[in-house]
Every structure is written in structure tokens, then in C-alpha cells.
């Protein structure tokens, strides 16, 4: 292994043990000491499988078939059982996505941290252990916060939990730290702090980091190098500044166009189709069925790596021919923008207070939504934005103040409203995995609201609703688990549309979805708005606001801190909270991406 390399992976193949179907096939990569490699891809592309293989580990049902993973000169895959266990944590360590489930909820974090150290270094004296623990705390930006060690995980904030998890990964000074989406569950401001911590660690600790993420913006702000995976193979790799500015693989180009950005008002573009399952991957280039540039050779011959520039590889027969165009901006400019200040708003909320079992969550919130417009409600978790949405939808009865729809007051909970009012306000839940009953077919799910329609309504409502969300009628006889996340969210939207609502409340509807699917759903919602539907769009991601909303309110600690028309608020935030949210937003610094200068 050449000097200065921390990790070298060669021709790694991970397969499903029962069938021999490869999940990760023939992946090679290398990483120098002190560098961050961003491993990017959408769900199901094999990035977590690859990340775990870097620890010599395969999830249940999978098996590492061939290849080598050399870390600091040791081939991890040649080791077995006890030897491998000894090196995990010492040579290579892992930071999982959800720190809350990685830390034992019943033990103080200090004990867990000390155990991680002493299991590998049993000879350390008590003062040495103490010094190492405090050192690890300082490394993750928790210096002089020794009291944290005496707390239980639930007494820490999400950001603190994740830093403790990183400290556990760090305390044995490994050569490689594998991080699997460590900031996905965190607020943008907390995420910014954790990312700073990771940068600092790489600089000072000489550790190499493999950072797995689906978020191109985060990766571009953190990683020196980036490797984009698709369907278990490498699609493109190279220095992140080069790959993300001048991508040469059509898949990477598509991903970049799907990334939302607060600074640019444009419609997001998704990638049509979906990534194939491991068993259904086509011959030739796996991306060919979704690729607009595909030619005959793409469908038959596996593309070899093409060196686009020094260190920049692209596994594409037509490398360099995909260009990021600025067509979408023109698209956005022509989009219909109904005027504000109509005589009577569709929804008028004034002085709304809400609480959870006596604890106040919302204090004096007032918002208005005009017909045919979309109001984005933005804030960090805990700011009360979901409670506001649920109170309006009649799902949170502990509130007072007035909610007027069309000039009529709405009852506090669903049973207190009229049939017409219940139809007029429809709610789309955050997680499409939980909002559809897993034991009913899509047909029965969509039939459920039909009972609430006045008699003599439209004919064939199911197919019509599916058509409006661009789903084929063949999904009717499937169960939710047979659909992808994006398809499930479309079913949820279709279920809401059946009742012909006037106001659609979308609660973080894309946060559980991949970025390319998110873009497709955002376009769908914007199309529906242009057909006359009004919308309340709840999100923590200011970057999504320009592509959907005309108006925006920013919430913090249960109050509205800023409101106004979206472009004005994003360009000139007047409250410190909005400015902080904007500053913490990771930006994809991509040249010419979707027409951004």
C-alpha cells in the first residue's frame, strides 16, 4: 500500500448470501490520511453496505464475497472472528445514523465512552483514561463539559448525542472513521456544528473519514473527494470540487439538478424512474433505462472507468456529454403567480395558542393563506410548526384562538367540523411509510375517503386521483410495502385529492425521500397548486421554499418571527433566526447547476 494512504479498497463484491446477487459489485476506492471521502447515492444503491464492508462487516443475509479492504496496511477481510473484533474500534470505527439508538439508553454516556476505550486498552491507568476521555470530548467540541458524562442519553440534545457517538468512534484514535449519515436526523444549525467538528477532527487527528450521505450539499461542503454510487457500482469519483461542479455522468448531473437551493427560484428537476433492485439490475450500464443520453452500447456493455481529468473517473460510455442546462429557470419564470391581497383569504388563523398537556407550544400565532398560493412554514424541530399544521387540520385539539376557513370558523377537532370542512382541509403526513395502513391494498386505502363524499359525485374517482399524481392504475392491487417511498407519498396525495380539498397541508412531506424523488414530488405539488389548490407547506429546509412557496413564515419557539413574500424574506431576512437558518443551510457550490451563476 502506498505511503500516505489510509484506506485502499480493491474490487469489493458484497452479495446476498442466499442468491449470490451482488449488492455492491467491483468497487475500488482509496483515501489519503486526513481526508474526507463523501460516499453519495440514493437509498438502495449499496452505500451503507459498502460502508459496513469497510469494517469487515456484512449485514444479516449479505456476505462479502471478494476484494480487499486495507486500512493502515492491514487487510481487514483476511481476518476472522476475534482478530477482526479487536481491530474494529481501534483501526476503524463507525458512527451510525441515529445516535439515540446507538447509545444504550440505560447507562450514563461517560460509562459507555470509557468502556469503548478500555475494551481496547485495558492497561491504561485511571488518570490516563480520564485524560483520554476529556481529550475526546474536547475533540468533538464539548470541552469543559465533563458533566455531560454523568448524564443519560435522553438527557442530551440530538447534537450532543451525535457528538458523543463521534467521540466514541474517536477515542481509540482509529485510522478510519466511517460515518453513516450522521447529521440526517439533526436540525440544520446543529448539523452545521457537527460538520465543523468533523472537519476539525480530520485536520487535527490524521484520521481519514468516509462520510456516507444522500445530501450532495453536505458532502460538497465537507469532503475532499466524492464517490457517487448507483445500483451497487461506482458512477463517478474524484475531487468533490470537480465532480460536483463539472459532473460528467448523467446520473450525477441529474442528482445535482434535484438539489434544492434557497438562493435560486427554480423548479426542481427529478430523475424519472427509480433505481433497480439488486436482483433486477439490467445488463450494461445500470442507469441506462433512466438515462436520456443512453445509446445501444449502454444497454449491453458494462461501462469501464473513463478518466475525465486527473483523478476524476466516470463510469459512463458518454462521459462528459451530460450538461446541466438552465432550461428549468425559464420554466419557473413562466409559472403562474396569482396575486396576493385578495378580498378574503382562504385560511385565516389569528392568535392561536396551543399546548401539549399543559406545556405551551404555540403562542399567539397568526397566519393567512390566499387562494391558489402556497405558504411555507419554516423552522427547526421544536419550533411548533407541525403543531400549527395539526391544529389547523383538526388533529391537535389542545388549542384556542380562531381558525377561519372561507370566513367560517373551524372546530377545534375533526368531529366538531362539518363534513364539508373536513373535506376542504386535507393533511399529508411526513412519513409515507406510516400514513398508509400496511394491511390494506392501495385500492382499499383510496376507497376509505369515498364514504365522506356527497352522493352523486365524480365517476371513477380512484383512477382520476391516481392520474393526477401520475401513478398507473396497476398500483391499485398492491400493498404499500410493494411501492417505493415516492410512490407511497403520491398515494397519500391522491387520497387527499379524492375529497377535492381547498387547502392541502403538507407536513415535511419530502423529508423521508431521496433528493431526486423529492424533486419529483415538489413538482407535482407545484402543478397541483397551479391548478388552483392552496397549500400550507411545513418544512425545516429553507432550500425547498423557492421551488414551491410564494409566501413564507419563519417560526421559532412557538412564535412567528418573520413573515412575508418568499423571495423578499430569503433575499433580505430581517430576523436573526431566519438569517441563522439561511447561514446554516449547506449549499451546493456547483457551477451552472440549474442555471445558478
Amino acid at each position, binding site marked *: 500500500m502506498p505511503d500516505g494512504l489510509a484506506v485502499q479498497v480493491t474490487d469489493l463484491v458484497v452479495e*446476498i448470501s*442466499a442468491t449470490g446477487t451482488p*449488492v455492491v459489485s467491483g468497487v475500488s476506492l482509496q483515501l489519503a490520511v486526513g481526508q474526507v471521502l463523501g460516499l453519495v447515492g440514493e437509498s*438502495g444503491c449499496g452505500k451503507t453496505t459498502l460502508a459496513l464492508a469497510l469494517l469487515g462487516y456484512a449485514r444479516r*443475509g*449479505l456476505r462479502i464475497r471478494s476484494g480487499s479492504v486495507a486500512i493502515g496496511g492491514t487487510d481487514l477481510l483476511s481476518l476472522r472472528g476475534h482478530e477482526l473484533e479487536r481491530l474494529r474500534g481501534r483501526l476503524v470505527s463507525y458512527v451510525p445514523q441515529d445516535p439515540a439508538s446507538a447509545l444504550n439508553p440505560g447507562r450514563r454516556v461517560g460509562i459507555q465512552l470509557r468502556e469503548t476505550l478500555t475494551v481496547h486498552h485495558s492497561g491504561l491507568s485511571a488518570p490516563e483514561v480520564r485524560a483520554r476521555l476529556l481529550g475526546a470530548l474536547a475533540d468533538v467540541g464539548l470541552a469543559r463539559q465533563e458533566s455531560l458524562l454523568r448524564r443519560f442519553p435522553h438527557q442530551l440534545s440530538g447534537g450532543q448525542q451525535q457528538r458523543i457517538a463521534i467521540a466514541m468512534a474517536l477515542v481509540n484514535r482509529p485510522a478510519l472513521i466511517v460515518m453513516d449519515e450522521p447529521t440526517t436526523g439533526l436540525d440544520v444549525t446543529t448539523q452545521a456544528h457537527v460538520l465543523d467538528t468533523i472537519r476539525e477532527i480530520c485536520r487535527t487527528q490524521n484520521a481519514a473519514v468516509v462520510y456516507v450521505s444522500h445530501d450532495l450539499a453536505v458532502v460538497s461542503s465537507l469532503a475532499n473527494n466524492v464517490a457517487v454510487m448507483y445500483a451497487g457500482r461506482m458512477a463517478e469519483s474524484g475531487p468533490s470540487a470537480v465532480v460536483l461542479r463539472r459532473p460528467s455522468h448523467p446520473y450525477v448531473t441529474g442528482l445535482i439538478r434535484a438539489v434544492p437551493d434557497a438562493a435560486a427560484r427554480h423548479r426542481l*428537476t*427529478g*430523475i*424519472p*424512474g*427509480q433505481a433497480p*433492485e*439488486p*436482483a*433486477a439490475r439490467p445488463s450494461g450500464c445500470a442507469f441506462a433505462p*433512466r438515462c436520456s443520453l443512453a445509446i445501444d452500447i449502454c444497454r449491453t456493455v458494462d461501462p469501464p472507468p473513463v478518466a475525465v481529468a486527473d483523478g476524476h473517473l466516470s463510469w459512463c460510455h458518454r462521459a462528459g456529454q451530460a450538461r446541466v442546462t438552465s432550461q428549468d429557470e425559464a420554466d419557473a419564470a413562466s409559472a403562474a403567480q396569482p396575486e396576493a391581497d385578495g378580498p378574503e383569504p382562504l385560511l385565516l388563523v389569528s392568535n392561536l395558542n396551543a399546548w401539549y398537556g399543559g406545556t405551551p407550544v404555540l403562542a399567539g400565532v397568526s397566519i393567512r393563506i390566499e387562494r391558489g398560493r402556497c405558504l411555507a412554514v419554516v423552522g427547526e424541530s421544536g419550533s411548533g410548526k407541525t403543531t400549527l399544521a395539526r391544529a389547523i*387540520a*383538526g*388533529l391537535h385539539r389542545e388549542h384556542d384562538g380562531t381558525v377561519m376557513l372561507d370566513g367560517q370558523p373551524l372546530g377545534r377537532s*375533526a*368531529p366538531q*367540523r362539518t363534513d364539508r370542512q*373536513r373535506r376542504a382541509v386535507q*393533511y399529508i*403526513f*411526513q*412519513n409515507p411509510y*406510516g*400514513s*398508509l*395502513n*400496511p*394491511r*390494506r*391494498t392501495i385500492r382499499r386505502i383510496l376507497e*376509505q*375517503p369515498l364514504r*365522506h363524499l356527497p352522493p352523486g359525485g365524480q365517476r371513477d374517482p380512484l383512477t382520476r386521483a391516481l392520474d393526477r*399524481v*401520475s*401513478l*398507473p392504475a*396497476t*398500483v391499485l*392491487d*398492491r*400493498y404499500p*410495502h*410493494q*411501492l*417505493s417511498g*415516492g*410512490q407511497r407519498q403520491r398515494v397519500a396525495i391522491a*387520497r387527499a385529492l379524492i375529497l377535492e380539498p381547498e387547502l392541502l397541508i403538507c407536513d415535511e412531506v419530502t423529508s423521508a425521500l431521496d433528493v431526486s*424523488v423529492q424533486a*419529483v414530488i415538489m*413538482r*407535482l405539488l407545484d402543478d397541483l397548486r397551479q391548478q388552483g389548490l392552496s397549500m400550507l407547506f411545513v418544512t425545516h429546509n429553507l432550500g425547498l421554499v423557492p421551488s414551491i412557496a410564494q409566501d413564507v413564515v419563519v417560526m421559532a419557539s412557538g412564535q412567528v418571527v418573520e413573515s412575508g413574500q418568499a423571495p423578499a424574506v430569503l433575499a433580505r431576512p430581517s430576523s436573526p433566526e431566519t438569517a441563522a437558518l439561511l447561514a446554516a443551510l449547506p449549499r451546493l457550490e456547483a457551477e451552472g447547476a440549474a442555471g445558478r451563476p
Partner: protein
Amino acid sequence: MKWRPSRSSAWFRAARTTRGRVGLLLVGLVAAIALLGPLLTPDSPTALLGVPFARPGSGHLLGLEYVGRDTLARVLDGGIRILPLAAIATAAGVGLGAFFGISAGYRGGAYDEIVMRTLDVLLAVPQIILALLLVSLAGASPLLVGTAVVLIHAPQVARVARAATLRAAREDFVKYSQALSDPPLRIMLTDVLPNVSGPLLVESALRLTYSIGIIASLNFLGLGTRPPFPDWGAMINENRIGIGQNPWPVVVPVALVAVLTIGASLYADALSRATAGIELGAEGVLVAPVDEGGRDA
């Protein structure tokens, strides 16, 4: 993926797995012995034919039992008195428990407290005492034995059902139905019940075993089957003392009950997996090849 799933498809899907197939086979075997056995007895199950605990041989394949009756005849004749009763009592107990557990978990509040505390009282009374109490009130009969089994199962099943319901009732699809103002009974039947059926099914298989045990002990006390008629539960108890001389009168009924339990558990497990969609692909999710892009394509 051509087949159209129907309401009953989970039962068939479960039966198509190895686990489910083996389970059904074992349950079927024991059920066949119990139901057809009385027609096949070689000797009278109540006639005295020789010395107690005589070893197998001389026309008695499994030897004789504690008063000198034919073991094989009593095994074949003894299932019918215990299996149908156990199955019906289990179903009734699970049904009653599920009803109270789901309604208490879903409605919460005072109703939850009253139902669950009442069931706690029932749970606190030892099983045999409960049965004896019933006998002193109504006299001994198989109906009474069944009632006792139902009362013993219901509180425990209710606890399982309530815990699963609390989890299911937090799901967004339940909130969706509430936002539509669907009646609570409909929400419980269509949203909650199908999503708690997994743990309930596993519990039912276990409960079937307990039922056989409880009925056997009640029979042993002479509260159910009256001597001299045989049943598997009573046989295990009657013949314990002679296990050194002729083990078969104990071993065979024990084995039959064990095989039934294992079979029922395997099938219940296959059923709960089939309904949860676990057996579909390595990642547990089967993504159907439906076009995602729609109009953006």
C-alpha cells in the same frame, strides 16, 4: 407478481413457506389422530386387559396403563375429548381478550382503567382456584372447564393486545382516519386489528398449549372428563407413577401435545411473517417496477 391478493391470501402465503407447511402438517397429523382415532381403536379403551403397566407386546403395541387398559386404544380415543374443547376455548379466550385489550388500548381513559383493573383482579386469582370457584357455583361439566379456560386466557391476551394497540394507534394512518371522523369501531376493526394480529396469532398458538395443560389438570381433579373415559391430559397425570415400568402411556400423549404446540407455533409464526411482509426479499421491501417519474419522464 401477477396474482391478485385477496383477503385470505396471508393464510395461503403462510402455508406456502416451509415453516408454515411443516406447521400445518404437524397440526393436521395430531388433529387427524384425535378426530379419527375413536374409529380405529383396536381394543375397548375402558376394558381391563391385564396387569397394570405391562410392557408392549402380546397384542398391545404400547403396552397397558395404570389399571391395565390398552394404551393405544386410550390414546386414539382420548384426543377427541380434549382437542376440540381446547381449540374452542382458546379461540373464545383470545377473542374476548382481544376485544377488551384493543378497545381499552384505543379508547384509553377511564374505560381503559376499569377494563384493565378488572382483568388484573381475574389475573390475580390462581387458575385452579378460579376453576374450583366456578365448580362450586355451577357443578362439574366440560362447558364449565371451557369457561374456566376462557377466563384464564382473556386477561393475559388482553394485555398483549392492549400493548400492541397502543403502538398501532400512534401510527399516522390511524390519525388520518380520525381526521376523517370515521367511527371508532370501524377504526379499531380496519386500522388497529389487522396491525395487531401478528402478536395475537403468536399468542394464540401458545395459548392453545396452555389450554391443553389446564384442561388436563382440571380433568385430573375430576372436573371435566369423568373416569373411566380417557383423555390425553388425564393420561399424563394418571400414569406418571409407572413411567419406569411402561413409559408409553405418558410419553405418547406428551409427544402428541408437544407436536401440536410446535406445529401451531410454526404456522402462527409463518402467518405473522406473511402478514408483516418480512419474507419478501433481503431488505424486507419489495419494490414493484412501477414508473416513478410520471410526467417528468
